[in-house]
């Protein structure tokens, strides 16, 4: 049941790679001018954050959730409704949404922590569908299928920008937040508890791992971060409806991005977003939505059957090869 590759990239190397990538991402706006690619870049960042949020409960703790769109939707609707109804800026709304989703995630964690494998998956799926049905039918609050349009009022103080690049930096900030929390959890006591639980719950419990508390904290953190992404998404697209926020397909895609990249690792979901989102966009433009999803389906089957560690495992192998090569050169020189 080992999900992690036995030879992870050493922390020092991953810190250097992360810092270098961040610097590169900061300067991307100076290089790329094409609106299509800017839009794509922001979408990739948003999905990378979302998959990272999923990965905290799905990857580290092994609770494969097919209901995460619910938390994304709670975030999107909370910040948007607070703005529309009460004039509260999304900069505050994003935290209200995160707290709400965090509580909801904790609740789901408390009632499902005992369920294993397919039973857990089905419970999260049912939870996601319940939220979706409420979203579609509670028209007094959400306006149902008509959706909510964010009027362009205010500007930066309301997380609404005229310049597309501003969204790039907002999305990048969000990614730094989610990846930072994810990496901190991975290296914390909690992170080791979660992996121990994932690999063998009974053994972990007998060694004193606090099962319920660890799982609930992971579920709540994951849900709260997914909600933050939802709020940013709503400000970026400026229109939300049940189909684009709480639908089952969205939950599947969140999990798909993390799995393709490599679940249970910090960088896997980022790699997944960088692969899946441009691929999906290009296929959709060339062949249409149906054909793009045909490829998603095949990709998902091939990855989980032949490389359940995801694309990150390939990258790790490459890093190890390079290091071995450098080491052998050094020895040859000496």
């Amino acid at each position, binding site marked *: 049941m080992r999900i992690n590759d036995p030879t992870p990239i050493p922390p020092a190397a991953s810190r250097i790679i992360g810092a270098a990538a961040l610097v590169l991402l900061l300067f991307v706006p100076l290089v790329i001018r094409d609106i299509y690619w800017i839009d794509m870049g922001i979408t990739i960042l948003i999905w990378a954050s979302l998959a990272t949020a999923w990965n905290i409960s799905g990857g580290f703790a092994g609770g494969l959730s097919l209901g995460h769109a619910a938390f994304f939707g709670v975030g999107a609707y909370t910040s948007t409704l607070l703005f529309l109804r009460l004039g509260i800026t999304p900069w505050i709304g994003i935290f209200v949404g995160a707290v709400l989703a965090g509580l909801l995630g904790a609740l789901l964690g408390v009632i499902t922590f005992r369920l294993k494998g*397919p*039973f857990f998956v*089905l419970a999260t799926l*049912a939870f996601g569908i319940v939220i979706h*049905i409420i979203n579609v039918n509670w028209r007094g609050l959400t306006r149902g299928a008509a959706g909510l349009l964010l009027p362009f009022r205010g500007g930066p103080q309301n997380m609404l920008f005229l310049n597309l690049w501003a969204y790039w930096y907002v999305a990048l900030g969000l990614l730094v937040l989610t990846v930072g929390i994810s990496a901190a959890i991975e290296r914390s006591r909690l992170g080791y508890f979660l992996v121990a639980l994932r690999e063998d719950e009974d053994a972990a419990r007998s060694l004193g791992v606090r099962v319920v508390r660890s799982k609930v904290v992971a579920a709540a953190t994951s849900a709260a971060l997914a909600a933050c992404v939802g709020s940013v998404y709503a400000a970026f697209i400026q229109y939300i409806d049940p189909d684009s926020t709480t639908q089952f397909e969205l939950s599947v895609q969140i999990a798909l991005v993390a799995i393709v990249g490599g679940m249970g690792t910090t960088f896997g979901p980022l790699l997944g977003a960088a692969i899946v989102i441009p691929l999906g966009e290009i296929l959709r433009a060339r062949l249409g939505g*149906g054909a793009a999803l045909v490829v998603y389906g095949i990709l*998902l*089957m091939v990855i*989980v059957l032949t490389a*359940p560690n995801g694309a990150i495992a390939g990258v790790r192998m490459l890093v190890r090869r390079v290091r071995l090569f450098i080491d052998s050169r050094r020895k040859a020189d000496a």
Partner: protein
Amino acid sequence: MQLVLQIVANGLLIGGLYALLAVGLTLIFGVLRVVNFAHAEFMMLGMYGAYWLWSIYGLDPYISVFLVTPVIFLLGVAVDRLIIQRSIGKPDVTVVFATLGLSIFLQNAVLTLWTADIRSVSTFATGSVFVVGGVRLSVAMTISFAAAMLFALGLWFFLTKTMYGKGIQAVAQNRRAAALMGIDVKRAYLITYSVAVAAAGAMGVLVAPIFTIFPRVGQTQIVTIFVIVVLGGLGSVPGAVIAALLVGIIRSGAGFMFGTAWGELAYFAVFLLVLIVRPQGLFGRRGAEVYGG
């Protein structure tokens, strides 16, 4: 009273159709320990099979069911060989997402090939009703119900009276002990999966004259089937049949009282509650949920 009888009768008819789908899904879980997310897509393929044979050759679904079902069976054999056998014994993520990927693939392959247009099949029975004791029953629905029950009966006969079926039951109880008794476990998996999806395909053909046909029709049904199967106890065949009839009645009753949408919400809430309070379902073996995956 008349109204109650009518609601119960409608519920039973629709529940009987769901039973054919639910029995296959629960059988696959009981024997292979795989939750077949793609199950309802085989129903969708069966519906399209019925549609094309009807619109091109004018074949009635009640005849074409004998042509489509074997084709879906063969498709099941291929899927088992290519995907299911490779995912057994792997981590949960493989077991869950391989069939989910298959479901996405099948849905959208059909969407790409045959567009999202809504299609329907009409037969001699379409639109006609008959009255029994003041209760109006759709002729098409009743024929499909009877055929579905015959299929289910055949499945039961196969499982309990034939050597293959007994082997499958043995594997469901304990795959290691079954292997030690000389049962070919892989073949039991193959037969179970193919027979179960063929039943889903047959159900698809039988409901083609009743439901509208479109690529995502499976997706609208699969969650209901999950509700039924979990309620009956994942892996329990009689549980699935009883739960299917029960859900059929609840659905038509709740739909009548609260409207379709909120009625749906009610039974998802029940589903969550069953999962949390009694994950083995109403009729499942205790401890079945522990093995999950």
